[in-house]
Each structure stands twice: as C-alpha cells, then as structure tokens.
C-alpha cells in the first residue's frame, strides 16, 4: 500500500501557509478574533494612557478629552465598537462551541454573530450620533 503524503504546516513559511490554507467560517472567525484581540489590547493601552491625565486634575483631563470630542474621533470610536462587538459576540460563540456543544451549530452562530453585530453596530451609530444629528437641526 502506498503511503499517503501528508502536508504538514511549515512554520517557516507561516505567512504563505496561512494564506493558502483553505478557510471556512471557523477559520475566519479565528483570524478576526485574533486580530481584534490584539487591536483591543493595544486599545486598552491607549485607553489607560488617555485617562492618565485624571491624576493631574480637571484641566489636564478636559484638555485631553477635547481632542476626543471631535466628530472624526467619534467615528473612530464607532469603529472601535465594531471591533469590541465582533470580539464579544465571537467570544460568546467560542464559549458556546466549547461548553454548549456548539460544534454542531457553530456555522449558524458565526452568521448570527455578523447579523447581531451589524444590527448593534448600526444601533450604536444612532445612539452615538443622534446627538450630532440633532445638533445640526437646532
């Protein structure tokens, strides 16, 4: 009997291997979860850094916050919410896969992640920008 050639993952060419590897919804979820996770860790750093003027009182803090109150920054905050949302919803999906037999329905959960995510993203957009929208008509 002929030996079957098994292709192992070559760690040295990990970029090429990752790109050529066949990806279904679970792989994409894994990739997005990882990227969003790293992004959120970087964001925690920025978040603590941006709140650090609280140690030097009102003026220092509000000077810094003025920068974050611009519309451009609000849009960035909104996009940050997209990352938080994906990581949260996919995180719930992972817990269900691990603890609630979710391996049987993980593809449905992945679709649900996107549907719920997009709905909540748009809802948050309304909550965040309704103030801005109302300001325009005042």
């Amino acid at each position, binding site marked *: 009997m002929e030996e079957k050639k098994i292709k192992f993952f070559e760690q040295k060419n990990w970029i090429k291997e990752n790109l050529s590897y066949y990806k279904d919804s679970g792989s994409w979820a894994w990739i997005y979860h*990882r990227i969003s*996770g790293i992004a959120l*860790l970087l964001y925690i750093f920025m978040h603590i850094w941006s709140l650090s003027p*609280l140690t030097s009182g009102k003026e220092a803090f509000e000077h810094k916050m003025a920068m974050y109150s611009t519309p451009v920054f609000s849009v960035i905050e909104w996009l940050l919410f997209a990352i938080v949302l994906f990581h949260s919803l996919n995180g719930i999906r992972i*817990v269900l896969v691990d603890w609630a037999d979710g391996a049987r329905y993980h593809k449905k959960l992945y679709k649900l992640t996107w549907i719920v995510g997009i709905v909540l993203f748009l809802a*948050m957009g309304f909550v965040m920008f309704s*103030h801005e929208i109302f300001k325009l008509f005042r």
Partner: protein
Amino acid sequence: MKFSNYSDKHMYKYKASKETGAKSWVFQRITGLALVVFMIGHYILMHYQPESGKTYEAVLYRMQFSWYRIIDLTFVTLGIYHGFNGLWGIFRDYDMKPWLKITIISIILIAGLAFLVWGYNIIFSIPYIN
C-alpha cells in the same frame, strides 16, 4: 451522530491537558463572559450621554461611590488579565525554545502588572470630596 468516542470524563484523565494551560483556558472564558457584561454597562454609561464619559465632573461624581471604584478596579483587572492571557495564548500556538518562552512570559507578566498598577493608580488618584 457522535463526533468522538471520548467522553468529557475521559478527556480530563489526561494529566497533560490539565497542566498545559487548561486553567488559563477556563479563566479566559469566564473573564471573557464577565467582560461582555461589564462592557455593556460601560457602553451604556459612556455613550448614552456624550458628556458622561468626557467631563471631569461626571468622572469625579461616579468615583465618589466606593462600589463604583470596586467595579472599575474589577473591570481593569479582568480586562488586562484577559488581554495579556490572550496574548500569551497567541504565542503559545507557536513552537518556542524554553528561553524564548520564559522571556516572553516575563515580558507579558511585567507589562501586565505595569498596566494594572498604572490603571489602579489613575483610579486611586481621583479624590473623594466631602
């Protein structure tokens, strides 16, 4: 349809799985779920009104309640633990020489603790006004 012949009871019999990060795996899920709950509160608080997150008065007012400080400290702790444990989880996917492992763990631990101290310091620096 059965996917595996091993029951959960069997899986736990393997000593190796207990000692190669199973605890941090469980903690990652528990802290993750807790963070979802905290995050919902955080977003409602910070974005329902645009002022609540960005004025000093609002922050100062919230910080007068010790229970709020405790929630904040828990949130910071869980977030940083989850973040750095997740980062270590990424590294753990790759084959590393022991010295590299130890170096990366050390950097992650020191950075994580520094973050925690930094975050705590900010919360504790906000005064109580009577």
